[in-house]
């Protein structure tokens, strides 16, 4: 019933690792297409935007064209351009690898949207609570510094001390801000350190608190991901994949090739199915009320 971003962070992490990891490892064309279509549709469903697709398409064309122009391996020469052979293999490799890159880009975009800082901290916390605290503090300090920089600059400007009408002044003024900003940071750090110490920092082992709970649903999803990934790995071991240079070799339609392709397609389209199921369930629930 919960949206994708409400899944347990570990499940989310495993899911994205599986979808993107497999796409990076194996170049079997059906996998690449599933990767791009799944990512693209889910991206649209989430953001409700169609515009960015144009940008991605353009990028896809560029990537697909660059490969045959720069790589001249392969045995089937299509034509000669500027004394360089353009091969069929390079053209196909370009198209497929461009699909792969665009697909992974879609997934990365979704990932950065879904994996908020807390989730990252939680995952780090599983490894080391100290690292988790460090990440959390850094996430706080960076925007704090940015804001203070802007404030100091505005103040100095409004007092009339900063003119910056030439490059040397411009540079010098920024150096001075940086200089005082370091002092400011240390000063702040001292108060923060006091506040930490006053609350028992460094007295021994620490827990890492988070708001996440592993629900049954999460466990089911995790099992499914592991199962599908397992099938894909077996398929790969049985020879699913593609060899491009010097000659395109794709194994025929074996059982494992089909199984691997279908498993990955389910994996990649899963968030979209999930999204619609959640929406449907809601509608159903509300109509009952």
């Amino acid at each position: 019933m919960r949206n994708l971003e409400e899944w347990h962070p570990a499940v989310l992490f495993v899911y994205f690792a599986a979808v993107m990891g497999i796409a990076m490892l194996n170049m079997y064309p059906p996998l690449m297409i599933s990767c791009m279509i799944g990512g693209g549709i889910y991206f649209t469903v989430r953001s409700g935007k169609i515009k960015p697709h144009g940008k991605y398409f353009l990028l896809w064309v560029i990537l697909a064209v660059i490969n045959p122009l720069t790589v001249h391996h392969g045995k089937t020469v299509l034509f000669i351009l500027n004394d360089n052979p353009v091969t069929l293999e390079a053209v196909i490799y370009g198209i497929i690898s461009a699909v792969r890159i665009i697909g992974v880009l879609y997934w990365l975009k979704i990932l950065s949207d879904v994996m908020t800082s807390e989730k990252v901290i939680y995952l780090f916390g599983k490894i080391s609570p100290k690292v988790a605290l460090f990440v959390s503090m850094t996430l706080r300090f960076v925007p704090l510094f940015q804001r203070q920089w802007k404030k100091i600059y505005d103040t100095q400007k409004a007092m009339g001390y900063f003119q910056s009408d030439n490059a040397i002044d411009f540079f010098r003024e920024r150096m001075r801000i940086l200089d005082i900003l370091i002092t400011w940071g240390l000063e702040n750090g001292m108060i923060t350190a006091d506040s930490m110490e006053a609350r028992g920092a460094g007295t021994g082992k620490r827990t890492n608190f988070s708001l996440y709970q592993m629900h049954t649903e999460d466990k089911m999803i995790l099992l499914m991901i592991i199962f599908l990934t397992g099938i894909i790995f077996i398929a790969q071991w049985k020879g699913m994949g593609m060899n491009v240079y010097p000659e395109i070799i794709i194994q025929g339609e074996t059982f494992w090739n089909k199984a691997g392709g279908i498993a990955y397609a389910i994996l990649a389209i899963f968030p979209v199915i999930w999204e619609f199921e959640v929406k449907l369930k809601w509608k159903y629930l509300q109509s009952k009320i």
Partner: protein
Amino acid sequence: MEILTVENLNFTYAGAEQETLRNVSFSVNQGEMVLLCGATGCGKTTLLRCLKPELNPFGKRTGKIIFNGGQIGYVMQNPEQQIVTDKVFHELAYGLENLNIPQKEIAWRTAEIASYFGIGSWFETSTQELSGGQKQLLNLASVMAMQPELLILDEPTAQLDPIAAAEFLMTVRKINRELGLTIIFTEHRLEEAIPHSDKMMIMQNGKISVFAEPEKAISGMQEQEELFFLMPSAVKIFLMTGKKGKCPLTVSEGRTYISTNFENEINSLPEREKISGETILDVRNIYFRYDRKGADILNGLTFSVKQGEIFCILGENGSGKSTCLKVIANLQRSYSGEIRIFGKALKQYKNNLYQNCLAFLPQDVQTVFLQETVKKELEEVGIPEENFPKAIQPLKNKHPYDLSGGEQQLVALEKILARKPKLLLLDEPTKGMDAFTKKSIIERLKLLKETGVTVIAVTHDIEFSAECADRCGMFFRGRIMGEGTPEQFFSRNHFYTTAASRMTRGYYRNAVTVEEVVTLCRKNQTKN
């Protein structure tokens, strides 16, 4: 039952010659709320830090501190810097994490504490999105999550606006009453703090001079003492009119004190003179918003200011007061309307706007400083050492960041005045300032006024504007709703007005400052 006993405590900072604490002895009972007060630099913070083992200052210490309890909670002045983590819930859990308390227990305790302090609705937000008052409440809550048996608060409301400060103090009092928690706190807003405290400890030069119930502590005071300035209006009036009967602490007690002791045959004072210079700032129909889709922050703002005037803009938080100054200072651009400064449109000024014309002092005065010492800071802008004002002389070798909020404001004001601005814009000039420093700021501004400088101050500080403004404006939802001389302004307002005015409402007609009330009291006959 005593929870804390201090015996003959002496403390000298490492490298310092003089003792900061001298022969301090006192004991605090379980469940008491003790207010520690004294002028800046008298050793309040040092004493408080000596009580909390983790924060003990470096130096030589003799004497005994006996604490019969578990945890000591400590909340400091700066709301921002005390926060360690990036999310509210994580901040609440932080102390508990350090104690290695299991997950489930933390979940329980943070939930409980969030409900008690009303934090539930912003439990998962980023700590940097909170307002100052919310941040300080979070600091208090995260300390309370550790279940301390003694709570120490070191000027917790210094950085907050008066409304948030009053709310914070109410919360602290609520904890004290409902949980029976022992609290020691320092404050410079004694107007609100004294009625909330069970006992008052007055510190002078590292010694405790008085430790008693507030009424008793104050009755022993003299009018000339440096602590006099820190006292609530009712107490000031009591001390200045010759201490008749029991000392009033709150507004209602002050009212009774005046009406039972003084006649009201003469019930008003002559009006202050109006400034009649030429108009130097004309703001007309200004509209401003930060976002294209956002709401208007300035909504048809219109006002004008005359040469040599001190104009105070008062209003609640988030009403757009600071934004208004930023727009006039050309740091933000309005999308509609016109601003004329010295008869010339703001758009026609370029960089020369800040050359001998206008200067803007922001709320966060720390951003003014770029040097290592106050002396360098002021010498750099062309003020020779011998010309430093008297209040700044003792501070000249310190780092600007080591000064108290009020002292920083004084130095910043001096630095900005070196530009010889004709129009000075001040954003909360009395924030974080004790009454003593406030006095010197007011004097400085009045001196400036005589040299023809015009001042526009955005402030929450009602007492400050009653004392030094020529005109006050009420800012509400992006524009000025009403304006007038302090007498008109504050005697017309019922709620948003000075304590002195609330005390004499209906009895005297236009007394808004303590001095005015005292003058009227003296003019009238005393009742028997």
